[in-house]
Each structure stands twice: as C-alpha cells, then as structure tokens.
C-alpha cells in the first residue's frame, strides 16, 4: 500500500481501475433497464404479501414491454402508487377495457383484500403507466443483502470501505 502511495502513476491507475469497475456495473444496470423498458429491471421483494411465491429478499426480473400481448390478469406486476416511493409486487386480478387506459386492480396472493386501500386517495384502479414491469424471472434469496443494507446502513459504509481498500491494495 505504501509503495503505491510513493508511486503516483500506480495510484492513479488503481483509482481508474476502481472507477472502471463502478461504471461497468452502472452501464450494465442501465443497459438492462433499456432492454426491459423499465426504470428498475431487477427488484428485491420487500414484503411477504406474495407468499408463498415470493419471500423477502428474493430477486425478481421485470419486463415492461408489451410486444406480444397486453399486461393481463394473472400477471405479477410491480407498480408505484402516485405520491409514494415504494414499489409494490402484486398480482393483477381484474382488468376492465383494453389499451393504455384499461383499469387494473391488483391483490397480493397472501392478502385477504385487494389493493384498493393501498392506492392513492380517490384512486380505485391502476393505469398501465403506473406499472414498471411484469415479473418474468425469479432467483431466491440473492437480494437479501440489500435488505440488510437497508436495515443496517453502517454495513454499506463498511462494504464500500473494504472494496475501495481492496482495489488500492491490489497491485496492477
């Protein structure tokens, strides 16, 4: 480590290496986002309202394009309620009409009642534009790390610290 500090050229190279790693991850995320046409193509399940299908910490892959068919009843969608910033993963249970202004109603498999209570005041149904993607792929548990980071923010600092340190410590 000390040797790298003595050699500014090497220190700069290591810093660039770290920046490259970060920007590659960012580019892959944004690329996936463009392919799936979704602002957030991979989400982590945060609640148990879709159990036993999805548990907390499971990773979901979203697809937001209607290439072959419209978003339909039975699909599991992720939506944002106007004015709230928490994405919700629930199943579409009713659909009235077709096109961009079809009225959609959702419900969690594990909930007794539909989502009318969760929607914004005066909102009885979702529009297609409220939905940020339909679930197409599933990997269990892998996303639990982010829940841990969310609940214990200091872990994030430690993690970034270790990552940065590793890159600087590594030669070449």
């Amino acid at each position: 480590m000390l040797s790298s500090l003595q050699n500014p050229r090497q220190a700069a190279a290591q810093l660039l290496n770290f920046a490259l790693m970060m920007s590659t991850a960012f580019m892959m995320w944004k690329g996936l986002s463009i392919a799936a046409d979704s602002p957030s193509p991979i989400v982590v399940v945060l609640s148990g309202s879709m159990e036993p299908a999805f548990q907390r910490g499971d990773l979901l892959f979203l697809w937001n394009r209607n290439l072959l068919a419209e978003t339909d009843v039975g699909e599991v969608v992720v939506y944002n309620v106007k004015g709230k910033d928490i994405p919700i993963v629930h199943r579409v249970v009713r659909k009235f009409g077709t096109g961009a202004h079809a009225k959609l109603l959702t419900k969690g498999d594990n909930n007794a009642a539909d989502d009318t209570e969760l929607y914004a005041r005066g909102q009885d149904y979702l529009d297609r534009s409220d939905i940020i993607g339909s679930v197409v792929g599933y990997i269990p548990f892998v996303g639990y790390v982010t829940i841990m980071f969310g609940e214990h923010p200091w872990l994030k600092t430690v993690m970034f610290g270790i990552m940065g340190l590793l890159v600087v410590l590594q030669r070449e």
Partner: protein
Amino acid sequence: MYNSINRLQTVFGFFTTVAFVVAAIIAASDFTAPRTPSATIKATNVQVVKGRPHYYSSKKEEYAIIRFSLDADLSSLFTWNTKQLFVYVTAEWPAAPSGAVAGSGTNQTNKAIIWDTIITSPSSDHLANIGPATLKKLRKSAAGKSVDPSRGKLSLKNQRPKYQITYPTGKVANTEDMTLHVHYNVQPWVGMLTWDQDFDFALWKKMAKGISKVFALPAVAPKKG
C-alpha cells in the same frame, strides 16, 4: 502474489459462478418436462345481488355471484422445480353495451378473477399461509414425496366464488356473452415464471378445453323477505 484476500476473492468468485450455473441448469430443465394440462369448467348457478363495496360506503353496486364446477388435471405441471401453482378462474366478457364501439364486440375486454387457489409443492409446504393443523395434514398427505403431482387434480362441485365481481360503473346485471376460463401460473424455485399458453410450445401443450359455455348474467335478484 497470493495473499489471503486474493484467495478469499477467488473462492467467493468460483462459488457464485458455480451457483449461477447450477441455477441456470435447473431453470432450463423445466423445458424437458412435458406439460399436458386439461380442465373443464361450467357455470352452475349465477346470481346478481346489490351490495356495498365496504361497510362504510353508501355506494350501491351490483355484484355477480357465479358458482361453478371445475374438473382439472394439472398434475403434469409439478416437477422438482415447481414451488407452487397458482390456479385461477376468470370471468371474461366483451365491452359493456353502453360503450359499444363497432367492431370491438369480438374481443374479450373485461376479465376478473372469481376464484383462485395456491397449490404448494411438498417442498414449499412450510411457506404456505395455513394453520399448524392444516399444515400437518398437508405434510402427511405427501409423506416421503418431494414432488406430488396428485395435488394438481382438482374436482369442485358447485363451488362458491371467492370474489364477487362488479364493473367500474357498478352495473353488471344482464351482462351477456360471459365465459369462465381456467388459468394457471407456475412459480418455479428458480427461473422463469410461466402461464397457461394459447399455443403448443415444444413439450408444453396448451390447456385442453378450460373454457365454459357462454352464459348471461340475470337481472338483479329481488330482495328476500
């Protein structure tokens, strides 16, 4: 040079690679299992009543209560990668007559789930939202089996719907051209979520039958008493 951090990194990297490859192979194995689902469904008793969306609402709406009989064989959908099967029955009908647009009559434009059920695999019984007594019974029914295709056989007679459906306008009485459809959604342990298909795809056949005869909703039932 090899120091302990390097080695730890290599081990972790190798572990994730292996884990993802194994997961990908498991997910791909879904395509090697043939699927031959079939179902017959029939509306047995149809009723329309007036009610309120919830206790504190003064809005009066019409609700359709559609009883049905269902016989389904979905046992081929249970494989080692099946976590649960979500079976749902929808009522589907074309646009309301009041908003009739020429040429749109043939499309099924309204769809509502009237009944659904979650069938867990024996491997995911512990995740189901059921009481301890029911869980014990369920476990016993599949003792020693990790995959239990017999759970995919459904036989319901004159089943009461779980959801009483209405339309955004609150009027559903006398709706015509209504049909009931059986659908399913296979939730895997890892991989792609799949639904019933409209067409055959490799080893996966489309749902045989699974659509009821066309029926119409009656007028609002007169108040009793």
